[in-house]
């Protein structure tokens, strides 16, 4: 009991400690293809130094999206611009960018700030100035004003990025999301850590630390709970943990494998792997009642279930063809159909949020890479070019995949865009980082 109390105190300290970016991103490929955009540093309208820079958050979000790159601030014709009213279109005539983000921050009562931002259509501005005087208000693509508290600067920065991204691409931004992952720090008494962080690695927090392995974290559709595998009782067991209340529920602890949890789209069930009846088979378990239903039935390995967005069938890995390949099973009829034929192995698959493609691990010539297959055309494209790639997880807007890989002898996280053009690495300070899971929209 005393130990438990000590442990809990430690956890609380970790949870409340201000977290810095533990995962700094290194863009390794794809900057050239990005669309230029101008982000003018938000104008601080208070006394003393500004509390934090929102525009820095926006700048890095847009760069990390792989879709945009911000112009060097020193090259911008106006740098103390806070709204479209002061926008001098003539000065921007030769700036090669499609839009300008401007904004301001001013004190608004105790510990609160009024943040306003505007998105200016630079393409339109450059078209209009050739034809005569410009009505600035017609250049406005978006305009918002919000009161935030001091600890919400990063969060609101992500919100602005979401709006800018959606306005310019038509795709919902995924900047206000989180990632869960496992860190292994060898040599520690409890080497296995289950962590969550903002999608960009900031605000890293520990959810669980254990002397025995932690595996396969996955998010509930509401972004509130994580399911994962823990060996804390010297066997594989599946837990669901509320990330706010820290409540943990054991969902599955049968003999043998209890693994590969995946939440149903309604959040009420988990698809899991159990080997209690002999071979690893796919089951669906009701989280509230714990009642389980066997879905697959084959003497070969069946594992890694993942839901189709409509919740009516599962994608899973099976060795029934001799080597691991991806299959689909209908929950109603239990009818199984093979999905992949190309490459030596295809495993660890998931369906993208739009239901149109599939992301998985492909083995070709002995090399493991992240691949995408279009479900309609069956066209397969290898996306990654790193080593020992595994555990792909798709961003909720379907634009990016985060996955585990090996770099300079260490397990690290990496990201690749859905077209394979943008590649980035998320290095770490200490330990091996693996099993990333991208949260739903928060």
């Amino acid at each position, binding site marked *: 009991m005393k130990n438990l109390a000590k442990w809990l105190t430690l956890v609380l300290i970790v949870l409340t400690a201000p977290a810095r970016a533990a995962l700094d991103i290194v863009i390794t490929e794809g900057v050239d293809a990005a669309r230029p955009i101008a982000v003018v540093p938000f104008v601080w309208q208070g006394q003393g130094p500004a509390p934090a820079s929102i525009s820095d958050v926006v700048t890095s979000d847009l760069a990390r999206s792989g879709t945009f790159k911000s112009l060097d601030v020193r090259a911008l014709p106006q740098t103390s611009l806070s709204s479209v009213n002061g926008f001098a279109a003539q000065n921007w005539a030769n700036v090669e960018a499609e839009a300008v983000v401007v904004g301001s921050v001013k004190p608004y009562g105790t510990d609160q700030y009024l943040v306003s931002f505007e998105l200016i259509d630079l393409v339109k501005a450059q078209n209009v100035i050739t034809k005569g005087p410009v009505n600035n208000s017609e250049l406005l693509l978006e305009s918002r004003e919000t009161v935030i508290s001091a600890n919400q600067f990063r969060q609101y920065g992500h919100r602005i990025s979401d709006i800018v991204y959606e306005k310019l691409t038509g795709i919902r931004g995924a900047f206000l999301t989180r990632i869960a992952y496992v860190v292994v720090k060898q040599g520690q008494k409890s080497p296995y850590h289950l962590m969550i962080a903002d999608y960009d690695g900031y605000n890293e927090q520990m959810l669980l630390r254990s002397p025995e392995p932690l595996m396969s974290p996955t998010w509930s559709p509401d972004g509130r709970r994580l399911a994962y595998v823990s*060996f804390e009782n010297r*066997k594989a067991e599946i837990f669901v943990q509320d990330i706010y209340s820290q409540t943990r529920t054991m969902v599955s602890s049968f003999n043998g*494998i209890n693994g590969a949890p995946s939440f149903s789209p309604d959040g009420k069930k988990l698809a899991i792997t159990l*080997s209690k009846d002999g071979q690893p088979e796919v089951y669906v378990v009701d989280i509230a009642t714990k009642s389980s239903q066997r879905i697959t039935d084959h003497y070969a390995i069946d594992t890694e279930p993942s839901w189709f967005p409509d919740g009516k069938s599962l994608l899973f890995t099976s060795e029934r063809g001799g080597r691991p390949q991806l299959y689909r099973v209908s929950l109603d009829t239990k009818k199984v159909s093979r999905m992949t034929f190309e490459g030596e192995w295809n*495993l*660890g698959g998931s369906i993208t949020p739009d239901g149109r493609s599939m992301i998985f*691990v492909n083995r070709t010539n002995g090399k493991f890479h992240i691949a995408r297959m279009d479900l309609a055309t069956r066209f397969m494209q290898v996306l990654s070019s790193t080593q020992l790639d595994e555990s792909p997880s798709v961003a909720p807007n379907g634009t990016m995949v985060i996955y585990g890989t090996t770099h300079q002898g260490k397990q690290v996280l990496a990201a690749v865009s859905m077209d394979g053009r943008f590649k980035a690495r998320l290095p770490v300070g200490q330990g091996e980082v*693996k099993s990333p899971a991208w949260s739903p929209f928060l």
Partner: protein
Amino acid sequence: MDLNKLFKAMLVAVPLMALGACSSTSDSETDASGSMSGTGSEYGTGGIETGGAGAVLSPVEQQRLKEQELRRQNIIYFDFDRSEVQSENAEILQAHGNYLVENPNVRVLIEGHADERGTPEYNIALGERRAKAIAKYLQGMGVQPSQMSIVSYGEEKPLDYSRTDTGFGLNRRGVLVY
């Protein structure tokens, strides 16, 4: 390192314990330490060394000693993506099997492990199949299923972090833990 101390302590403790019960740990590196004879010792104080003549052993006793030696090897290696027990491991498993048959109250935990290639959950399944292959082998020798339990750690507990072919080979293993 504490491990080093522990290892040294085990050099003394293991031969003693091996007479009565047996000893091993899941992450033990002692299996690679080569053979150790029960006679002669340079442990103690004052630099004194003792020597001794080997006892005259009956063939049964000789076999028992040999199996005692073999049982200290508690790791069985596997080929890539395979879970068949290789014939070169027959002698080691024979020693463990005989011991378990003779001591029906002794229980063993069989761990299955995989190398880092493939996905973590597929490797859990592969590790379990390896552990089961060892259990089946021992059961074939007459070991009771109730004496054996199984856990698969997949690629979560590698012995070697080099990510080379040699390293992968060391990680594809089954471990017998008493």
